[in-house]
């Protein structure tokens, strides 16, 4: 099966396509054929210019969802296009809250499996071939679909670099969702924006993360303070998210965010495979841990074998004195 047409889910936040969608559009361009996008919400028409700059020719605009969660209606629109014969050969979804929902529902509608946690894509004989980081990123697994039908991939953030190609604005085609019945019955009643000081976790130049080695919940304040002084974002290992010390939105790792900052500072994090897969591609890694044998030191450019309760306050104090 040749891949002549690839669709990418263009998720829109704050009036612009999210970076991961632009990364996927860039990747799709390299894989050959036409690149089209699927978008939803009330700002889709305004993003056609940006999407065009990255190589999208047509935006299939599901439009405003009237408060419905995107999973059911957006999947229904894509499935309808496939049924009508105007669908894509492959569809790329960013690994976001909504991207995963839409991909899962679409998979059932088309009775096609889905490959998730993709970190690389290439063109193969039977369509696209995907790469997946397994066992903490120590091994790369290559997978492909068998059988006919659209190929559905959910791709992790920062798997590709986003680069514009200088294309003209994309054409916008209204593609409202068919009736989704009970499957689309969940409604957003209200949206809450949580105050954030400093950059977003997955966009920050510096990420400071804390783990179980902090000992107790209150000690996470050290992580936030150090992140603040370095104009970075505060992250966390799964262990302390599971323990309820910090919300899920801070989690870095397999379950959670992928980060690639200039500097990643891991504090009291042992470096379970679950965590490594989300941060080992950081440009520079500093680890502070009292256990000399902790796996985190095997990926660290600078490892400090020491107690975070001593090293962090000293570091914070020294940085404050510089300011």
């Amino acid at each position, binding site marked *: 099966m040749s891949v002549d047409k690839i669709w990418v889910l263009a998720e829109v936040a704050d009036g612009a396509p999210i970076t991961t969608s632009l990364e996927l559009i860039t990747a799709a361009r390299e894989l050959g054929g036409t690149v089209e996008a699927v978008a939803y919400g009330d700002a889709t028409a305004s993003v056609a210019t940006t999407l065009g700059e990255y190589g999208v020719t047509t935006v299939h605009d599901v439009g405003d969802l009237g408060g419905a969660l995107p999973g059911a209606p957006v999947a229904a629109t894509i499935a309808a296009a496939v049924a009508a014969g105007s669908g894509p050969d492959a569809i790329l979804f960013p690994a976001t809250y909504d991207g995963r929902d839409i991909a899962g529902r679409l998979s059932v509608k088309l009775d096609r499996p889905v490959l998730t946690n993709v970190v690389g894509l290439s063109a193969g004989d039977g369509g696209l071939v995907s790469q997946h980081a397994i066992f903490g990123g120590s091994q790369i697994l290559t997978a492909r679909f068998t059988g006919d039908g659209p190929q559905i991939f959910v791709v992790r953030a920062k798997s590709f670099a986003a680069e514009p190609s200088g294309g003209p604005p994309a054409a916008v085609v209204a593609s409202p969702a068919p009736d989704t019945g009970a499957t689309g019955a969940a409604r*957003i*009643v209200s949206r809450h924006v949580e105050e954030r000081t400093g950059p977003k976790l997955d966009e920050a130049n510096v990420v400071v993360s804390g783990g179980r080695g902090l000992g107790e919940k209150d000690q996470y304040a050290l992580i936030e303070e150090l992140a603040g002084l370095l104009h970075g974002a505060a992250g966390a290992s799964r262990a302390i998210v599971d323990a309820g010390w910090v919300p899920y939105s801070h989690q870095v790792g397999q379950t959670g965010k992928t980060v690639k900052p200039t500097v990643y500072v891991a504090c009291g994090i042992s470096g*379970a495979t679950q965590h490594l897969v989300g941060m080992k591609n950081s440009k520079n890694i*500093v680890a502070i841990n009292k256990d000399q044998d902790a796996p985190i030191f095997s990926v660290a450019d600078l490892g400090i074998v020491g107690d975070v309760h*001593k090293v962090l306050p000293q570091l914070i104090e020294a940085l404050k004195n510089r300011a």
Partner: protein
Amino acid sequence: MNVVVCVKQIPDPAAPGALDPGTKNLVRAGKLILDDSDAYGVEMALQLADAAGGGDVTLVSMAPNGETSGLRTALAMGAAKAILISDESLAGTDALGTAKVLAAAIKRAEPDLILAATESTDGYTGTTPVQVAELLGLPSVTFAKKVEITGNSVKVERQTEAGYDEVESPLPAVVTVTAGVVEPRYPSFKGIMAAKSKPVETLTVADLGLDAGQVGSAGARQEVTEVADAEARSSGEIVVDEGEGYTRVIEFLEQLKVL
């Protein structure tokens, strides 16, 4: 209110994982334990059933070799019963096939609410719960950090990039919960003893009325073609802190021009 919790029994995540050299499937031959991620769903289900004034919490799980040790852990926490689908023909089933099996089993329990983790710790595909919802024709709300039942609907605080959305859905519905949202109780001694005699219904693919060609490696329409070592990251400088370790961190940050 009857709640089904989808639970996965997985190899101990603390032990190094391995792929079968022939099938390239994850090796799941040894003893399996309850996925930590599922303890939150079980706890949430118990609390919601309590708050609703009663009802059963039923576990649904698919596992090889009639494995029940993870189920016993969740039964010891307080779940009433379990449905286990175990069948040799299920080896190599992909996420969509797993969803078909779970959906067929869940239907038998006639739940008002279906809870699951956002993803499993071992395979972490993260699509199975939503696939189950679509197969059952139900709404779904993923990434819940707070769940409340009011009458015939569920109110969820759903994690978003910017914060959270308050979402309402009629029941029955599928809800996936993030970790850390409730504190899973430790099974009491009494609970562990009681769990031994709680009913575990073991079903085969045929019992569920599914076509064997839809599941297992026969039904999987994705394959692993290659597994290779990733480029190793070379380890760097190690400094044992004797009170001055922080100065080396500052030098390093200066070199990188982040200071």
